Structure formats: structure tokens, C-alpha cells
């Protein structure tokens, strides 16, 4: 499931898609896409005409070519869908291998039984030991084990799964590497994570999303109106012939009418619509995010508020030493050296960061302290200090009050400047650690949350797109405010409890906003379920994974931002290609209508009447004009397949700028491009003596 290293256009994929595009000619399959169904119906009608002509021995090259190109139009549309599905199918095949032929060790009344994995029901209890494949999704209810989840995450490093707490979920198809766990199955057969994932990537369970359905309706409406336009056209033509007293001046053969109809109906977007949707989900999968429905991907584009956990998303995760502030009369180096010494045995991230800071700032090397004459004092909740006793001196670092009491107890004094520094750091949202050597206070270490590089710019980008960010943290409001200001989030929720999160989401939703959040714990489940887009971490609990509508296999909370971008890109692609498709019609009219009606009111003996003026592209002949439009209409589908699969270029811009940009490219471009394209095809057809 890692991002595909190989090209998306490998030969096997293309071959599979090609055969699939013929298989999709089945009318029942075509019916799902009314625009393409109408195209196929038109192609079938013209085929009957062509066969009839053939039987009577007067099949023209024109009719033959129109027939072929109409079928190409249908095939190209099928191909677009097939190639999008093909990429998913390749991934599904890999997943299916993980599921194949697993046996489960079912525990029934304490007795172990060997059953086939698909026979497991929800609530069954199974045992897994080293080298066993987990037979179904479930929750560890006993024991601890390391599990290889590479089959679904692609991550080769094993993860720990244990009963109780937030790491209790196991996924069917993963392999236990060590130890023994007892699992309670939490899904019915076929409803497992892997099954859903396979269904999703195969496109089998892909339901059309609400917006896709609405767009589909609009495309049907356009097809109907063009059916009315083309259906009534022969009567307009005959009446015009009567008025001009020129019977037979207008070619309203079925071939020409179907050609016009197919050119006018939105075949471009109709043919690419499902490919756009499938590839949107595919893009998520490539980023190791599994969405349970396409609806969630669409909702991601609409998100107004992002609720982000501070830790891991906004900050690096742990507090880090950023500054040494010496007490009056103490050299900075001495403080740093003492602080480093006191932290040598401190394996917490905070402790490591102190050692690193001392090294970076003052080039104080990590000294190898021989064990015999150094006694390390580990941190204890009672003393709230840690440190080292070395060669008769004791160095301690810890909470301000504890160190003060320790110094005062030895008869030392606690400088007011240090107390002031401690206050200042606390107010700025940091954590002060006071360092003392014996009865002398050396100074303060400034520990603070370090905001991830680039995250502030990311939030600014989101803001430009109208998305607000809310930071969720368990910190006190003061600390939270300081970090919020530094990270540039729009709002924060301090000392957050799961209930507060849920409340906040409901509050935003009541005002009409759509909310996205990430979560992993069981207590996040209600909020995940309430959020419009809830991304559960794969490392999280089964409850969280069930509650969210997406699962991030990498368990990276920053992914939420990418998910929103993918959602937006999906919608933009759909809108851009719809606009392009409709704008194309203008040029096609200018190709076909003059071609059909140029003969009206032609002066005696001439071929071209006044309506020849509308032949703006100066196309060679009526037949070449109609043929060129049909060819263009078919080729444009294939030409746009890469764009449909890749998505239009995404930029973090305000809506007005995005609209201007896309309207210019796909609206104006859609008006102009076919004029050039049809003319070029016309020239080519004439050069090849095809028209």
C-alpha cells in the first residue's frame, strides 16, 4: 500500500483496461451512465444505418467513419473508467493474498478449536501466537504481542498490541510476531477492515457520492434538452427547405443527427465522471488513508474547521529545552554543564533535549561518567526532581518549588531573579526547570513545546482557503494560548476533555460548518463519529476506527490537511471538466450547423448559401466538418484521462482566485480549444483523404 513506485501507465494495466472497456459495452453496465448510454444508443442506430447501406452496396466512407468514431467515443469513456478502476484492482489483489486461507484458533469454553477464518462471528474469542495470522478484526482482551501490520500499512516495523488502553485493536490479515494474545472478534464475516478496503479499492462498493449524483442529474437534463433540440431539428430543416423552395438542401440523415447529438451532449464529463471519483479515492489510498465512503472524501473538500491535536500535529510531541537562563553571577556555561550532567541518565525526551542543547550551544560534550563515583537520582513524583551525585557535589534539576525547598533546606538562598524568570516562563506557556548545585541555585532551563517547522505557513494557507484551525490540547489555557499564537492557529481548546471536543464539534456544526478531526482513543470515538470527517489513527482503538469515516494507516495526524486538499482537488477536477465539456459545445455547433444548412438559399448552381458565413473555422466540406467534430469529441476524452486521474493542479488560494483561474483555463480554454482542435483534425482528415 505504499505509494506506487512504478509508473501508473504500465503495460499490464493498459491491457486490462482495454479489455475492460469492451466488457463495459454491456448495456446494463452502460445504463449506469446515461450520457454514455445515449451515445452508445446513437452509435447503435448509426451502425444499423451503416449495415443497411452495406447490404445495399452504397456504404459511404463518411457513414463508416462516423459509426466507428461514435463507438470509439463510448470505448474511450469506458476506458477512462476502467483505467481508474484498474489501479485499484491491482492493489486489491495484493490485499486479497493477505486474506487467503487463514485458519483461526477459536476458543470455546476454554477449549481451542481450529476453524476457517470466514466462519468467525462477531463476539467469538480466538487465540493468536507467534507466526499466526490474525483471522479477523478484533480487540485484544488478554496479553501483549508485537504485530506485523505491513500487509495493510506497508510499514515493516512491528507494532505492539495489548489488552486495555488505546492500542488494543488488531486487524485481520496482520501477523503476530511474538507472544500470545486473546482476541475478541468485533466484526461479522465480510465486514472486516481488509474486506472494506478491498471493496473500496476495487471500486465494487463505490457508491456515487451526493455531488456526483446531482451532477449526474444535470448531465441527464442536458442530454434531454439536446435530445429535444436534435429531435426537432429535422422539422426545422424541412420547413426551412419548404420556405426556400429547395427540397433536399439539408442533410438530416440519421447519421448526421446522431453525430450532432453526440457532439452536444456532455460526453466529456460524462465519460470521465466516475474516473474522477475513483481516482480521488485512489489518491487517498496512495497517501495511506482509507476512506469508508466516497461521501467522506467529498465532505473533506467542504471542511470549514479543522480540529487538530496539539501533540504530534502542531508541536513535535514533547517539550524541549530551548534556553539556559543563569542566575545572577553564574556563567552560562556552568549552568549548561551542570544541567547536562544532571540529565545524562535522564532518558526522557526532555532530558535528551537538555543534553543536546548544551552540546549545541556551548559545545559541551557528553561526558562518559563512570558509574562508580556517580549516583544518578531518577525523577520521582514525590521529590519532583532528578539529578546526579558526583564527587561530593549534588546537582538537581526539577520543579521550581522542589528545588527551592531543597536549596533552602541546605541553608542556601533562592534568588528573586530566578523566581522572576520562573514566573515569566510559566506565563509564556513554557515549563521552567530550576538547576541547583549543592546550596547554590545555578539558573533555569526553559523547556517549551516546539512548534513544527512550516506548520504556521500551512495554517496561513488553510486560512486563505477559508478553513479555520482549532488546536486541541490538555494544557492549561495560558500555555495553550502561547502555543496557539506561535503556531498561528485560529482558536484553541485548552484542558480539553472528550466531552468538550464533542461539544465544540456540535457547536460548529450548529452554525452550519463542517468539521474534521483526528483521534485515536476510545474516548475520541463519539467526537469522531460526530465530525463530518473523522480520521482515526490506525494505531488507535477499534472503537475509534469504527467511529471515524477514514483511517490513516500511517497514524500521522498532520495527514488531515492533505485529506482536505485531496477532497478539494477532487471537486475542482469535477467542476473544471464539466465547465470544459459544456464550453466545447459552442465550437461544435459552429462546425456542424453551417455544414448542415449551408445549402439553404444557395444561389443557382452554387453549393454554399448565406449560412456558409458561419463556417468560422473554414472547414473543408460539410462532411469533413461533421466528422472533425465527432473525432474531436472522442479524442478529447482520451486526452483528458490523465487530467481526470491526476486531478487539476491544486493551489491554496481564496475561492475567488481559484474561480478566476479555473474559469480562465477550463471555461475560456474550453471555448477556444475545440475551434483549434476541430480545425486541425479537419486539415488532417483532408490531408489523409479521409474526407
Amino acid at each position, binding site marked *: 500500500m505504499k505509494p506506487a513506485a512504478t509508473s501508473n501507465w504500465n503495460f499490464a494495466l493498459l491491457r486490462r483496461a482495454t479489455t475492460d472497456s469492451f466488457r463495459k459495452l454491456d448495456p446494463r453496465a452502460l445504463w449506469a451512465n446515461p450520457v454514455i448510454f445515449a451515445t452508445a444508443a446513437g452509435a447503435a442506430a448509426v451502425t444499423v444505418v451503416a449495415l443497411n447501406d452495406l447490404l445495399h452496396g452504397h456504404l459511404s466512407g463518411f457513414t463508416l467513419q462516423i459509426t466507428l468514431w461514435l463507438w470509439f467515443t463510448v470505448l474511450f469513456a469506458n476506458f477512462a473508467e476502467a483505467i481508474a478502476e484498474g489501479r485499484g484492482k491491482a492493489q486489491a489483489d495484493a490485499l486479497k493474498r493477505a486474506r487467503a486461507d487463514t485458519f483461526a484458533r477459536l476458543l470455546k469454553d476454554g477449549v481451542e478449536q481450529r476453524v476457517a477464518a470466514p466462519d468467525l462471528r462477531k463476539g467469538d474469542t480466538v487465540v493468536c501466537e507467534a507466526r499466526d495470522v490474525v483471522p479477523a478484526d478484533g480487540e485484544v482482551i488478554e496479553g501483549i504481542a508485537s504485530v506485523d501490520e505491513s500487509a495493510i500499512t506497508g510499514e515493516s516495523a512491528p507494532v505492539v498490541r495489548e489488552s486495555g488502553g488505546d492500542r488494543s485493536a488488531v486487524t485481520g490479515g496482520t501477523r503476530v510476531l511474538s507472544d500470545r494474545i486473546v482476541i475478541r472478534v468485533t466484526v461479522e464475516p465480510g465486514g472486516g477492515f481488509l474486506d472494506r478496503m478491498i471493496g473500496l479499492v476495487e471500486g465494487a462498493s463505490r457508491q456515487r457520492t*451526493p*455531488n456526483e449524483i*446531482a*451532477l449526474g*442529474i*444535470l448531465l441527464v*437534463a442536458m442530454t*434531454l*434538452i*439536446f435530445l*429535444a*433540440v436534435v429531435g*426537432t431539428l429535422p*422539422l*426545422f430543416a*424541412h*420547413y*426551412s427547405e419548404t*420556405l*426556400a423552395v429547395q427540397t433536399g438542401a439539408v442533410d438530416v440523415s440519421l447519421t448526421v443527427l446522431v453525430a450532432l447529438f453526440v457532439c*452536444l451532449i456532455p460526453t466529456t464529463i460524462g465519460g470521465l465522471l466516475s474516473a474522477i471519483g475513483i481516482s480521488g479515492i485512489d489518491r487517498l489510498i496512495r497517501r495511506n488513508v482509507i476512506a469508508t465512503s466516497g461521501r467522506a472524501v*467529498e465532505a473533506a*473538500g*467542504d471542511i*470549514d474547521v479543522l480540529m487538530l491535536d496539539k501533540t504530534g500535529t502542531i508541536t513535535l510531541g514533547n517539550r524541549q529545552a530551548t534556553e539556559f537562563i543563569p542566575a545572577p553571577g553564574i556563567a552560562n556555561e556552568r549552568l549548561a554543564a551542570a544541567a547536562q550532567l544532571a540529565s545524562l541518565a535522564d532518558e526522557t525526551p526532555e532530558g535528551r533535549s537538555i543534553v543536546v542543547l548544551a552540546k549545541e550551544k556551548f559545545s559541551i560534550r557528553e561526558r562518559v561518567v563512570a558509574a562508580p563515583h556517580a549516583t544518578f537520582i531518577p525523577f520521582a513524583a514525590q521529590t519532583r526532581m532528578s539529578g546526579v551525585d558526583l564527587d561530593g557535589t549534588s546537582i538537581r534539576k526539577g520543579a521550581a518549588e522542589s528545588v527551592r525547598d531543597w536549596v533552602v533546606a541546605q541553608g542556601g538562598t533562592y534568588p528573586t531573579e530566578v523566581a522572576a524568570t520562573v514566573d515569566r516562563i510559566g506565563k509564556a506557556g513554557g515549563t521552567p526547570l530550576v538547576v541547583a548545585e549543592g546550596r547554590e541555585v545555578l539558573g533555569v532551563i526553559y523547556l517549551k513545546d516546539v512548534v513544527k517547522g512550516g506548520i504556521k505557513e500551512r495554517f496561513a494557507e488553510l486560512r*486563505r*482557503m*477559508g*478553513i*479555520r484551525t482549532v488546536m486541541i490540547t490538555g494544557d492549561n489555557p495560558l500555555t495553550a494560548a502561547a502555543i496557539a499564537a506561535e503556531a498561528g492557529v485560529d482558536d484553541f481548546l485548552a484542558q480539553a476533555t472528550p466531552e468538550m471536543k464533542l461539544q465544540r464539534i456540535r457547536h460548529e456544526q450548529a*452554525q*452550519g*460548518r*463542517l468539521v474534521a478531526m483526528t483521534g485515536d482513543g476510545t474516548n475520541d470515538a463519539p467526537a469522531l463519529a460526530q465530525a463530518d470527517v473523522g480520521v482515526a489513527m490506525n494505531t488507535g482503538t477499534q472503537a475509534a476506527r469504527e467511529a471515524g469515516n477514514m483511517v490513516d494507516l500511517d497514524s500521522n495526524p498532520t495527514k488531515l490537511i492533505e485529506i482536505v486538499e485531496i477532497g*478539494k*482537488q477532487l*471537486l*475542482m477536477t469535477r*467542476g*473544471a471538466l464539466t*465547465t470544459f465539456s*459544456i*464550453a466545447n459545445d*459552442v465550437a461544435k*455547433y459552429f462546425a456542424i*450547423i453551417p455544414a448542415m444548412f449551408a445549402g*439553404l*438559399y444557395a444561389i443557382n448552381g452554387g453549393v454554399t448559401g*448565406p*449560412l456558409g458565413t*458561419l463556417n468560422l473555422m473554414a472547414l473543408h466540406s460539410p462532411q469533413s466538418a461533421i466528422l472533425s467534430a465527432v473525432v474531436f469529441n472522442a479524442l478529447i476524452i482520451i486526452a483528458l484521462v490523465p487530467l481526470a486521474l491526476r486531478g487539476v493542479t*491544486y493551489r491554496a488560494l*481564496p*475561492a*475567488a482566485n*481559484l*474561480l*478566476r483561474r479555473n*474559469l480562465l483555463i*477550463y471555461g475560456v480554454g474550453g471555448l477556444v480549444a475545440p475551434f483549434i482542435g476541430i480545425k486541425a483534425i479537419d486539415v488532417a482528415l483532408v490531408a489523409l483523404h479521409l474526407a
Partner: protein
Amino acid sequence: MNVSDFTYLALFVAVLVAVTAPLGRWLAAVLRGEPPIWLRWLIPVERGLYRLAGIRPDEEMSWRHYTGAILVFNLLGGVLIFVLQLFQAKLPLNPQNFSAVPLGIAVNTAVSFLTNTNWQAYSGESSLSYLTQMAGLGVQNFLSAATGLAVMAALARGLSRKSAHSIGNFWADLVRPTVYLLVPLSFGFAVVLVAQGVVMSFNPYVHAVTLAGTDQLIPLGPAASQIAIKQLGTNGGGFFGLNSAHPFENPTPLSNFLQALALLALPAACVYAYGLLAGARRHAWVIYGVMLAFFLGALGLSLWSEYSSPGSAALALEGKEVRFGITPSVLWANATTVASNGSVNAMHSSLSPLGGGIALFNILLGEIIFGGIGSGLYGMVMMILLAVFLAGLMVGRTPEYLGKKIEAFEIRLAAIAVLLPCAAVLFGCAISFATEAGRSAVGNAGPHALTEIVYAWASMANNNGSAFGSLTATGDWYTWGGSVVMLLGRFGVIIPVLAIAGSLAAKKTVPPSSGTFPTDGPLFAVLLGGVIIIVAALTYFPALTLGPVLEHLLLAAGRSF
């Protein structure tokens, strides 16, 4: 064209724009149920009407209930006109002793007036009694206009309400604009018209002997009161057959100027009122700008075509009233076709091919460039929904309009509202071309004949009501087919609009952000204009090509029809 022509046009546009905001504020206040202070003395009239009909004006209606009320009310209105026509011989105020109107024409006329179309298969002065004109047509002139305003108010409520289940009370929406706006305004305007020489009389027609010694019957009637609302309510049905070209209906250049202004004033004010009611004033001005641009564009093209047509200036006056001249006639032709008014002061058939084609195109746009009173605005909103849906995705969000998500239900109904009139025009034309009944009604040759038929169906299906010229509209096909098409064009739009209003009212409102699709800037204006042109152009490209465009090209080549 000379300086006075340009001055005339500039003055017209300036006054139109100037009256928009005051009239719009007035209209919005009335639709909110808060009549302006200087009309508060009419409150007892409003309350009295409710008491009389047993109505509680604050009772909220769901969209289905609201739609039901509209349909029943309009049906009854239609029946009344129908009955008056059939029995006018036995009823009072019939000094010329007109007999009953033939069935087909009576139905056509009833439908025509209840749908605010005012397509006239009859000629007023030679077939309708004063009572039929006044109690039937005159009354319906007010009520069909008020119906349009009610639907607009309901739509605005749907957009401004959040998670609501109702869209207002139809009876209140009907009574308030009638009592506080249409009647007072029409009364004032009628007085002005009378002062200009429009007749207002119950006397029998006057018999006169002309200088040439021939007998002439000079028709009279209570015309001024009906003409005021005919223009203000975008009805357009003339008291006399010649409509506003008749000297008793539109006697002077001043009356002409005022009537042309009156026919656009309220549709323009509707846009402003909609902005106030839906809470989107900037957006409303953008809509207004688009409408004005379309109107001025059409006007400019028509004038250019009219003045540059081959032939003498006298030829260009063919079919126009000399007392008005070319520029005011072309202005009127455009005003009456962008607004779904349909009254004429010149024969559109005699306009240059492009000028007539533009009048036709104005109608084919769907009567949404100012359009009918109320109906122009809600028709435009349907187009906006399509525009927002098509292009809205391009900003990376599912489409929304004024904070409301546009989903499958809205799109299906907006598509129906746009599609039905289009289909009605296309099939009406096709059947006319195919049948003797359709073809024989035509009084012209060449592409001009085709235009005439397309114009007729466009006018009926879009509830405009003007005719291109010499079409004989009294045959069964045009009267009965026309009746069906007028009903489709009116209620095929009203019902979807109300359903959309109901659906939108029930939705939450998404607060705007910089990620929201902008509907209040010049970019949206360009987009909306593009969608309007493309929808109309794509649907009618063949029809327009084979009619006006072909005729224009032939004229350029020296052939006229």
C-alpha cells in the same frame, strides 16, 4: 441616431436605475408585512380582506401547502375570466352587445391572463365587454402579478431561513403587495395616463364620419385603469387590439416614455427587494448588473441593426408609430421582451431581421433579464443555481448558494424549471412546422415565417405575450396548444421554485468564508452572463440560425422577406 436619441436612452436608463432602490425598498417592506408609514391607512383594508376570507395571515405554510394554495387560487381566477367571457352577453356593461367568446379563445384568454402571459388571441375592442375587461382581465392583471411577487417572497424566505419547515403564507403574500403596492401605484399611474389622453369611459363606442366620408366606429372603454397595471405588472395585454400602438392606449411621447419605464420598473425593483429579503444586497446588485448589461447589449445591437439596415430612413419606420419614432420604438421592443411584458408599440415583425431576432432572443433567454414581476427574479435564481452548480465545484467545495448547499433535489428541480419552457418552445415549433394548422397561420415568407412561428411559441412558453406580427392565432392549434404551453411555462417554473424554496429553508446555512464561492463580485457576473448565453444559445442555436440569422444574411445579400 443623433444627440436627442442618445439623450432619450440615457434619461430612460437613468430614471430606471434611480427608481430601482426606492421601489425595491417599498416592495421588500410590503412583502415583510411592514407597509410604509404613508400607506398604513390601508391596514384596515388588508385586515378586512383576511376577515372576509377567514384567513390567518401569520399561519405558516409548507411549500406543498403554499403551492396548493397558488394552484387553487389561480384555477379559480381562470374560471372567473372564462365564465365572464362565456356569459358576457347576459351580463351588464356590454354596450356593444358582444356575444359569448368562442370556447377555444375563451380558454386561451383565461390561461393567458392567469399566467401573466397576456397573449391575445382576441381583439379587445371587437369582442370583449367592459365587464369582462375590467372584472376579468383587469383583476387578473393584478393577481397574476401579485402571484409572481408571492413566489419570489417565498423563495427569498427559503434562502434566508435556517432549518425551517415553512416558507410563509401565500394569502398574506398575495394581499399585501396588491393592497400596498400594485393598487396605489396603478391608481396614480392611471391618473397620469388619463391626463395624457388615455380613455377611461363606460360610454358606448362613438360613431363618426371621417373627412373621406366613410363611417368609423371609435372604440372607448375603461382603458386607463387597466393599462396602468398592464405595464406595472408585466402583463402586457392591451385593452385594444393594437396594444400600445393604439392612440387611446398610448397617445403621446410622454405616455410612451412612462409606460416603457413602468414595464421595467417593478421587475428591476424586484431584484433589489430580493437582495433585502434574502439578505444579500451586494449579490442582488450583481444580478442587477448582469440584467442591465444584457438589456443594454440587446438594445445597442437592435439600434445598430435598425439604423444600419439597407434602405431609407422611411423604410426603417415601417411598422412603427411616427409619433414615437425609431429609437423609442426599439427601446420599447427590447424593454417589453426582456421583461415578460409583451405589450407592443411597434410591430416586431417589421423590425430589421437582427432587431426582431434580438427581441426573440430576449424572450428565449427565459424572461429572466428583469423578466416578469417576481417571475423574472425567481427564473434568474434558477439560472444562478445552475451557474453556481456548474462552476461552484471549481473552488473545491460542493456548490452552495447564499450559504445553502445545492444538492441533487435542487438541481433536478432547477433543471426542470429551465428545461420545460425550452422543450415547450421546441416541440411547439416542431409541431407547427409539421402541420398544416401550424404553417397556414403564418403571414410571411422565407426565414421570416420560421421566425414568426418560433416567436409565437417562445412568447407563450415564456409568458411574454407579444406576437411577432401577422400570425393568425385564432386557430385551434395555436389556442389550445398555446394554452398548454403557457401553463407549462408558468407553473412548470413556479412549482419547482417553491419546492426548492421549501428544501432550502430546511437546510442549515453555511457561514461564508474566503473559501466560499463568491456570488457578489464582477467575476460572478461574467460567469452568470456566460451561463445564461450558453444555455439559451445551445438550446436555440439551430432555431435562431434558421430564422433571424439566415434572414439577416439574406438581406445583406439583397433578399428580403
